[in-house]
């Protein structure tokens, strides 16, 4: 089995564009959650975490003409992918037959929900019909750069991007490819803002993950991609790996369509699986970037699972960076993977903002200080999706 390394990454979120902006926000405890600026909705009072650029600004950043058919999810994806490819030395030494795997649920829905009536009554916006699909979105992102041997689109709700990472890693480990560019992208839409609102899991205030008074999540948007390679390919191309992708695990909670089981069964199993693949013990983990949405259900369930895996009195530092980026749904797996890698490379623990009260049933409290307890060598990140789709990934310093 091939070792899988990360040779590049790129990100765009409410914290800004690129790794430096993201790192700065995390270190300065500056969240991206606030009032909506770009999404036109009746629910403008709900705190969200929008990418701080309009579509016009992002088109301009990419040199895409005004009249072109563009969707917000693809614009964000293209920007993040560009940074990832650049950092992996794509243009200095192009890899052979790379694969692109992207996760999204919304695709081009930001436009289709606006033009739905036009679709039904006239032909002025028909180009956007084809832009709606998840697959079309992946194609738009990949085609901006070109050169991919295979494209694949994953759609497993909030674990999509994490599963893209897992799938890419599997393909490299088994020799099906030597380079896999993986991640996800998702923009805010009225459709899912209203949907989450009707499930009554949105907080009217900035979210407070792992706090006893937490009342829900804040929706966010963004994109992030990682360049995964076999250690051999990285060496051949002369690129220095950022870190190792030590292991991943995906399991099913098999409990309810949207709620997590009280014992956190799926989360427990996915973390154990990732540890097993990485050949690590729970005590090896130096920091956990939790899924930590801030809903009463998730944090209880995930917290319970963490205690079951790591032991009541030996839980490593845990934080949810959704207190910075909001819940970026299908992109959260890769956005949080990039944040975890930043933590690893710069040796700090991203804090869990807005925490005040310890949860009654958990033995641990989340991290509120950037200074790690010990140097970070292994970092674990969780992403759980509706449908009980639970994924954990472990990144290791090399």
């Amino acid at each position, binding site marked *: 089995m091939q070792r899988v390394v990360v040779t590049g990454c790129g990100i765009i979120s409410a914290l800004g564009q690129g790794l430096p902006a993201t790192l700065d926000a995390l270190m300065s405890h500056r969240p991206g959650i606030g009032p909506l600026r770009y999404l036109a909705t009746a629910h403008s009072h709900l705190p969200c975490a929008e990418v701080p650029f309009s579509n016009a600004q992002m088109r301009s950043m990419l040199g895409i003409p005004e009249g072109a058919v563009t969707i917000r999810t693809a614009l964000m994806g293209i920007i993040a992918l560009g940074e990832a490819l650049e950092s992996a030395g794509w243009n200095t030494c192009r890899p052979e037959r790379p694969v692109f795997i992207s996760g999204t649920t919304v695709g081009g829905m930001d436009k289709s929900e606006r033009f739905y009536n036009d679709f039904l009554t006239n032909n002025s916006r028909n180009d956007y019909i084809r832009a709606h699909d998840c697959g079309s979105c992946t194609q738009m992102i990949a085609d901006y750069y070109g050169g991919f041997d295979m494209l694949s689109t994953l759609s497993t709700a909030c674990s999509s991007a994490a599963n893209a990472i897992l799938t890419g890693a599997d393909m490299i480990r088994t020799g099906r490819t030597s380079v896999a560019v993986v991640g996800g992208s998702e923009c805010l839409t009225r459709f899912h803002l209203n949907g989450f609102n*009707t499930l009554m899991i949105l907080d009217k205030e900035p979210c407070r993950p792992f706090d006893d008074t937490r009342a829900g999540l804040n929706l966010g948007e963004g994109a992030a991609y990682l360049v995964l390679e076999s250690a051999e390919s990285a060496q051949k191309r002369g690129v220095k790996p950022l870190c190792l992708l030590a292991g991943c695990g995906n399991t099913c909670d098999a409990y*309810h*369509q*949207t709620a997590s089981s009280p014992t956190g069964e799926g989360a427990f199993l996915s973390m154990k699986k990732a540890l097993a693949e990485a050949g690590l013990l729970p005590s090896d983990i130096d920091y956990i970037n939790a899924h930590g949405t801030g809903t009463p259900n998730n944090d209880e369930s995930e917290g319970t699972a963490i205690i079951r895996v790591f032991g009541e009195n030996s839980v490593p530092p845990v934080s949810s960076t959704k207190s910075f980026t909001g819940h970026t749904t299908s992109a959260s797996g890769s956005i949080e993977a990039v944040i975890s890698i930043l933590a690893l490379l710069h040796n700090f623990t991203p804090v869990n903002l807005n925490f005040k009260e310890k949860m009654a049933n958990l033995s641990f409290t989340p991290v509120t200080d950037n200074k790690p307890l010990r140097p970070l060598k292994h970092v674990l990140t969780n992403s759980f999706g509706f449908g009980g789709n639970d994924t954990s990934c472990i990144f290791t310093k090399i």
Partner: protein
Amino acid sequence: MEELILELKKQIIEALNLEEITPDDIDTNAPLFVEGLGLDSIDALELIVLMEKNYGIKLTDPGKSKEIFKSVATMAEYIQANRTK
């Protein structure tokens, strides 16, 4: 009140896709959640939508709603007292 209770049972069956159940099958005073019809958290949310759509009652606290949704009888009482439609 009897009319409201029957109407409510029919609406619950439709809103929650309880296809194999008729109004006669629903005991007015039996618990709706856990036992009885065994409804779950998503069903509770649908009932909140039902209250607003059919009776103009806005419920914003899922926790408080537990008391109102205890049984068809408690729902009907609450509707009678608070309906705006």
